[in-house]
């Protein structure tokens, strides 16, 4: 029996590596072909790169919510995409009121601060309520049960918002101060993108310090490691879990407002695709790992923006941006073939996942 096992496992590994190498070869071929054709100026490649970073910053902020919850509870909080949607949605009405009062354009920093604060509060509240109502009673249930609850909660939230506020498109008011571009190191970058990238970096750094250096942060790590043991050490596990959900919610709320700054529109189902992408980023980076979420998010953002043009164009595939989601997922599979635990692989994955 064992011998057969030994004979077969290398077989599949070989197949996997072959698939992986084949895909890499195609990627390489496409890239070279595109670059040799010289259709695009280097400034355009830089632009694509910057767009990718801005998009990636938002993915990273949402991914943090997934990865933190996953870290402590080992569950995919599918409803996190609706937590992300709820903040900017309510924030829209605040922004509208501020805009009508003229505050948003006279004091853009203050106005935007208020909107972000409201959005973070709403998202945090929803995240905490979710934990209390839908997840806490199921903490000891088999893994699939909370997953299904999360899917149910996700549907409920997005369609409740649809019912309450309607299906029409809502556009954030425009802030004059954020129009146009700033020159960064010789590259003209859109102002909202700079705001988003800077804010994302600041928040990620803050979170990193919080988790590493505060007492609550250390307690979080302890709960992630072993809930029962942490409880024995005098940590209030329920409280830590609530805090985790709250932080994830707050970050998602802020990410939502940044998203609205970039893309203007809020809609009841706006969380769905960013949510899936963010989760993909979390897995790409190594789920359960704060830095990993950031790396994964950036990587995915850049890949989506750059790769269709870089790789698929050279292969002669028409309308490559139609395939960008497919490309993102192919990338995920590729990364997981070579590194089954993500880029910054989490050592727990093999044992507990």
């Amino acid at each position: 029996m064992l011998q057969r096992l030994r004979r077969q496992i290398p077989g599949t590994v070989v197949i996997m590596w072959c698939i992986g190498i084949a895909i890499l070869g195609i990627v390489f071929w496409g890239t070279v072909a595109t670059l040799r054709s010289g259709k695009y100026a280097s400034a355009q490649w830089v632009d694509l790169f910057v767009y990718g970073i801005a998009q990636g910053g938002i993915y990273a902020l949402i991914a943090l919510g997934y990865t933190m919850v996953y870290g402590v509870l080992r569950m995919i909080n599918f409803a996190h995409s609706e937590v992300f949607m709820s903040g900017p949605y309510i924030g829209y009405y605040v922004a509208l009121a501020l805009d009508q009062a003229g505050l948003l354009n006279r004091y853009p920093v203050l106005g935007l601060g208020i909107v972000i604060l409201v959005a973070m509060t709403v998202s945090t509240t929803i995240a905490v309520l979710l934990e209390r109502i839908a997840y806490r009673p199921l903490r000891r249930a088999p893994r699939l049960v909370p997953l299904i609850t999360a899917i149910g909660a996700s549907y409920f939230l997005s369609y409740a918002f649809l019912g309450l506020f309607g299906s029409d498109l809502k556009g954030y008011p425009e802030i004059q101060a954020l129009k146009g571009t700033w020159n960064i190191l010789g590259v003209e970058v859109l102002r909202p993108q700079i705001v988003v990238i800077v804010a994302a970096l600041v928040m990620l750094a803050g979170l990193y310090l919080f988790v590493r250096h505060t007492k609550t942060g250390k307690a979080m790590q302890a709960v992630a490691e072993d809930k029962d043991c942490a409880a024995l050490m005098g940590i209030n596990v329920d409280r830590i879990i609530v805090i985790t959900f709250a932080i994830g919610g707050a970050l998602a709320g802020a990410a939502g407002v940044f998203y609205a700054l970039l893309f203007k529109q809020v809609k009841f189902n706006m969380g769905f695709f960013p949510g899936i992408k963010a989760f993909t980023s979390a897995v790409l980076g190594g789920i359960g790992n704060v830095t990993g979420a950031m790396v994964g998010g950036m990587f995915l953002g850049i890949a989506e923006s750059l790769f269709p043009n870089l790789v698929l164009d050279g292969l002669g595939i028409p309308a490559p941006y139609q395939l960008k989601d497919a490309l993102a997922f192919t990338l995920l599979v590729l990364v997981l073939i070579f590194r089954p635990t993500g880029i910054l692989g989490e050592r727990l994955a093999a044992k507990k996942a």
Partner: protein
Amino acid sequence: MNKKSLVLVSMVLLITLLAAACKPKAKFECTDPKGCVDIAPGEPVRIGYMFVISGSDAPLGNDTKYGLEIAVDDKKEILGHPIEVVGEDCMCSAEGGQTASTKLAADPKLVAVVGTNCSSAARAAIPVMCGAGISMISPSNTAPDLTAEDRPAEYWCYLRTAHNDKVQGAAMAEFAWQKGFRKAATIHDGSLYADKLQQVFAEKFKELGGTITAQEAVGPEDTDMKPVLTRIAATQPDFIYYPIFIAAGAQITKQAREVPGLENVQLAGADGVFSPDFLEGAGDAVLGFYWSSPDFTAFGAGYKEFLQKYETKYGVKVLAPFHAHSYDAAMMIFAAIEKVAVKDPDGTLHIGRKALSDALFATKDFKGLTGNLTCSPTGDCADPKIAVYQCMNADPATWNPGADPDSNPKKVWP
């Protein structure tokens, strides 16, 4: 046991008696090859609809539904019978179309159907409806194949009051050419509607002598359009045509102005984004945008009155451009019923299904809101007057097309 069987027997007897009592007296002989609908005195004439009432395309469906309901309000009754509307949500998918049509076709008293909104739903619904012999008029299917010369024989009961994609796409190409644009790019979103329109546009534009620099595609829920626009910018077009829907359309409009190389390119879309929501989503970047859409100024005299009824009844401004087509579809059906229905002395109506369909196909110079409708042998009834509008003001509150010559958006062609 005895009691039970007694109850059963008496029930059966009762039902037979009732059925016998309800049977119409054999005065009228139905000779129609597809059967007849008999409507007893006082019974309503039942008209069905299949629209997309839920999901993100709901505004389109509701718009057509409102148009139909106003037509029923205006008509009030047919030959002394009230009109009843029954409807199904067919969503925007083939399976939705098939299920909705199966449910409607199961109603033996259903006279005709207005629907569907999406061409994919129509392709699944038409065979079911025609199988049941029920005439079907769509107010918003625009796919060319539905009324093409070589359409399948099982489409015999299908007509439409919406303009064919061939007309709208070509109109925009002609306009762009006349305005002096020579290099155009197109974007579609993977929907049947957008894909067909951009194809027609591209073919016509090339035929006129222009160049198509790029034909790209995005997803309907995509938000970051800057990468794909950068790609288009590399081909240096002076005109971008994206006949898609509001959410993605607004993103492209907004972001095109932010991509180097596209600051001054002319943007244009079709009636899928002809809505104040589009202004809300795109912001100031929408100024100068071109739409192709039905020519509201060429619409019949009743159109202004219709708009008023719409606003008072539903508390909203028009949601999409197909309400009038739906109104006309319903009115065509009513007129055809009045033409073919046989009325008994006691008030019972008999409507032959094939006769009704023939009457619909024979519609000629029908004065509708959208113009004078004449149906082709393959069911194209529209009087396609396509106009191009330009956005003069980015504030959604100013949205009032066709109210007067200068209202926003302004008609600029023909």
